[in-house]
């Protein structure tokens, strides 16, 4: 069986699954809209957690949050299910496909066979849509891929039951109830307010303060950890910021696109201005990545170079602080 489902490529998987499921159900909601309303933008230095033997830094909110907030704010209902037994997970999935219901799944990336090998890490918060089953193979719409693909039921079981941090446990979700009209305007305002609150949070590791905290750590790394480790850590920051899914500049460009679209919906010129400002901030993040890459490319950087990129981050933090204060006032 195959559900008549249209695949659209997006930058990020969670936004993409939501946007594609909404489009399937007749609501034209763009990726930036999902991201902005779901308050996806974030900066967080996650202490105690190591990813690939380096500190974990996130440019986005916790996995699952974007969909949860988006659904609540525009007024749709979602059903979520997790499973203990793979057989049960497969049976419920098949049932939904029989009912012509495409569903979102949370999966691990490590065993995702259609990903390039180099990108297959133990990361368990990837999302994709299953829209059918043919000859025992599942039809997959992975929003970060250009086109649709397939997985055998064994392959799908493996990624649905990946283990480690954020283990999906077969997590499946799909919208079940829609209002006549989406509550977009109010949702945008709520989404923006939430993001301002996150980015300006009085917590040392979150938002603007988190960026400053990270800058401080970067200054210390070469002495404390040695150049080799410091470079590895720096590389990890750049990968979190730019690798598949952020749309460039650690989600800042997607957010700028959201503000531009919102300015038209809300008839608010200030948001259009702020969108431009966010683009400039996104460019600064790109500059930071470029300069950081020069450090880990040469492998023999001086302390000065680390101080330089740390200062870049601090400048970004200042800009974002002003930005989110203004954004808060603009709505």
């Amino acid at each position: 069986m195959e559900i008549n489902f249209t695949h659209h490529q997006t930058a990020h998987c969670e936004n993409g699954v939501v946007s594609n499921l909404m489009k399937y159900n007749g609501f034209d909601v763009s990726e930036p809209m999902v991201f902005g309303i779901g308050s996806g933008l974030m900066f967080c230095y996650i202490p105690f957690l190591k990813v690939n033997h380096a500190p974990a830094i996130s440019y986005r909110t916790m996995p699952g949050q974007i969909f949860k907030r988006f659904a609540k704010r525009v007024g749709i209902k979602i059903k979520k299910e997790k499973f203990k037994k793979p057989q049960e997970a497969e049976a419920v999935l098949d049932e939904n496909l029989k009912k012509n219901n495409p569903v979102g799944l949370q999966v691990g990336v490590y065993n995702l066979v259609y990903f390039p090998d180099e990108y297959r890490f133990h990361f368990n918060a990837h999302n994709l849509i299953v829209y059918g089953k043919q000859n025992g193979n599942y039809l997959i719409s992975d929003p970060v891929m250009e086109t649709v693909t397939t997985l055998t039921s064994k392959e799908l079981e493996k990624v649905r039951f990946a283990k480690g941090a954020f283990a999906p446990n077969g997590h499946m979700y799909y919208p079940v109830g829609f209002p006549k009209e989406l509550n977009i305007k109010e949702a945008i305002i709520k989404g923006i307010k939430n993001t301002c609150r996150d980015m300006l949070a009085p917590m040392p590791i979150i938002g603007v303060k988190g960026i400053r905290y990270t800058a401080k750590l970067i200054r210390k790394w070469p002495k404390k950890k040695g150049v080799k480790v410091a470079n590895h850590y720096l590389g990890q920051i750049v990968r979190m910021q730019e690798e598949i899914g952020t749309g460039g500049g650690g989600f800042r460009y997607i957010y700028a696109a959201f503000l531009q679209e919102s300015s038209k919906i809300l008839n608010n010129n200030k948001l259009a201005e702020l969108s431009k400002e966010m683009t400039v901030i996104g460019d600064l993040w790109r500059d930071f990545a470029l300069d950081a890459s020069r450090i880990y490319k040469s492998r023999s950087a001086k302390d000065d170079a680390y101080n330089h990129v740390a200062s870049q981050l601090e400048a970004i933090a200042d800009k974002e602080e002003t930005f989110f204060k203004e954004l808060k006032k603009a709505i």
Partner: protein
Amino acid sequence: MKKSDVPQDRSHLKAGNHKELCYAVDDKGEYTTAQSTGWKPKAIALDNAIEEINNRISKAKTRVLNKETSPIEYYMELHKMDVSILASYVGLFKWQVKRHFKLKIFNKLSTKTLEKYANVFEISMNKLKDIDYGN
């Protein structure tokens, strides 16, 4: 970022014939999307990360051949895991997995426990006990 500035550098994405989506502004200042084959700063970061993993794998291999650790540690590195990920795959505590790195303990492990590891790494028991088996 302007649409015309969306990088089209060589990367592992390009090698695998993949393209990712970026957000950028067009000539009129309107946001739009553009596909990218990759960007050098992150391509280098990924290359370094892969090199780091390969170093870890070859170091673990040497340690196994020198009888300083059990093959479990080698296979863990080979699968890009760390102790906590491996522990959750085999359903044991981290300290248990670490203990199984010790050759003395490893040699005394029950078939049942060894099978757990062999299943996770998708290898035969022979290969689990001897990393050069069949080579």
